[in-house]
C-alpha cells in the first residue's frame, strides 16, 4: 500500500534498465564505455537517461 520509497535498489534497477535499453537500442558499442563511467559522469548520464525516458513516455502520451 502507498507509494514505494525511492531506495538504492530502485536506483540500481533503473541503472540496469538503462543498460538493457542500450542493448536493445543497438548501443552495444557504448555499453562497455558506460560500465567505465564513474562518479559524476555516471550520475549525470543516468539523470539524462531518465530524462530521455520521461520524454519518450510523454511523446507516447
Amino acid at each position, binding site marked *: 500500500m502507498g507509494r514505494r520509497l525511492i531506495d538504492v535498489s530502485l536506483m540500481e534497477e533503473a541503472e*540496469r534498465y538503462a543498460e538493457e535499453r542500450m542493448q536493445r537500442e543497438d548501443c552495444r558499442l557504448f555499453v562497455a564505455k558506460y560500465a567505465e563511467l564513474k562518479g559524476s559522469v555516471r550520475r*549525470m548520464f543516468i*539523470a*539524462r537517461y*531518465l*530524462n530521455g525516458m520521461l*520524454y*519518450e513516455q*510523454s511523446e507516447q502520451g
Partner: protein
Amino acid sequence: MSITRDEYFRLREIYANMNPNDITDAEMKEFIQYSEMLSRVPGASVLFGGDQFRQVNRMFYRIDEIEAVDRSKLVTVKSGITAIDGRLHGFIKGELTIVSGTNGSGKSTWLSQVAVEAAAQGFTSVIFSGELPAPRVKEWLMLQAAGPDHIVRDGWSFHVESGAAKQITEWMRKKIFIYNNENGTEIGRVLKALEYFALVLGVDVIVLDNLMSMDLRSITGDKYERQAELTLRLSEFAKKRNVHIFFVCHPRKAMGFLRKDDISGTADITNAADNVLIVHRVNNDFKSRTKEFFKWGDDAEMYRYSNAIEVCKNRDLGVQDAFAGTYFEECSKRFLNAAGEAKHYGWEPEKEEWNDGTPFD
C-alpha cells in the same frame, strides 16, 4: 521491471541534483562526448537527446539542396500573450531573445509567467535570477500559476490557498528549476550550469535574469566587449543545445521611452539576438513619447492597457515596431490578454462550463 512515471521524476531529481563542485571540467567534457556519441545511434536518438547535438559536417550547401523552412516542424514556446504569439508564432527553440525594459516595467515578472506558460505546454525551464532570492521567484511563479480564483489577500500581500499551493508545487517541481545563486555568477560557472541543465535535465527554456548580475571578468576586453562576447556565446549555446534563451538586459538609461539602441552598451548585443523585446509600462511618459515617435493619437489602442510588450526585432519573420497590449493583474502578477481573463494552466482539473439556458436535471 516497472517504474512509474512519478518514480522516474523522483529518480531524476535524486541523480540530477548534484553539487556543482563535484563536476570537474574534464568530467563534463567526458559526459558531453559520451552523450553525443549515443545521440547518433539510430533509433535511440530521441532517448539520448539527439536534437541537442547539431552536427556540422560540411562547409556549404548547394542552392538546389536547400529546402524552404517547414514551419510546422519548428518547436516553439508560446508566451501566452496572444498578440505576441500571433505575430511571432512563438519563440523558436535554438534562438536567443533579449528582453529589456526600465526598472519596474515588468520584464522579470513577464518572463516568470512565460516559464509557467512553458510548463503548461510541456516544456521544462530553468530560471537564473541574479537579483531575486529563490523564495521570491517561487512566490511569483505560484501566484501566476494559481490565478485569482486561488489567491487570498492578507493585508497588502497575496498568497495562494494552501490546497492549490500543494498541487501547484507538485506540478511545477517537474517543469521549473531555479538556479542556486550560491553556485556563483561567474560566467564560466554559469555556462557550465547551462550545459548541465540542457543535457542532464533536458530543459527547453532558459531565463537569464540578468546581464548586469553576471560576473564577466574572465572574458577579455572592456565592459561592452565582454557583454557582447557573452551574448554571442549564449546565441551559440541556444543553437548548439536547441534551447530557447530569454536574456534580460537592462537599458543604459533608467527612465524614458526605451528604444532598441538603448539596450546595454553596444549594438553588438542586440545584433546577436534573434528577437529583441522591450516591456513598457503604459504611463504618461510612454504616451507622450509614443505620440512623438509614432504619431499615435490620444485614443491609441495601446493606451487602454497597463503594459505593452514591443517587438523591436524578430529575425525569423522580420517583425519590428509591433506592440502587444496587456493588463497587469496585481494579485496574480499575471499579464492578461483581456481584463478578467482567468487562464487555467493544467495543475487543476478544468471546470465544467455551463452555457446559458443549459437545463439542470
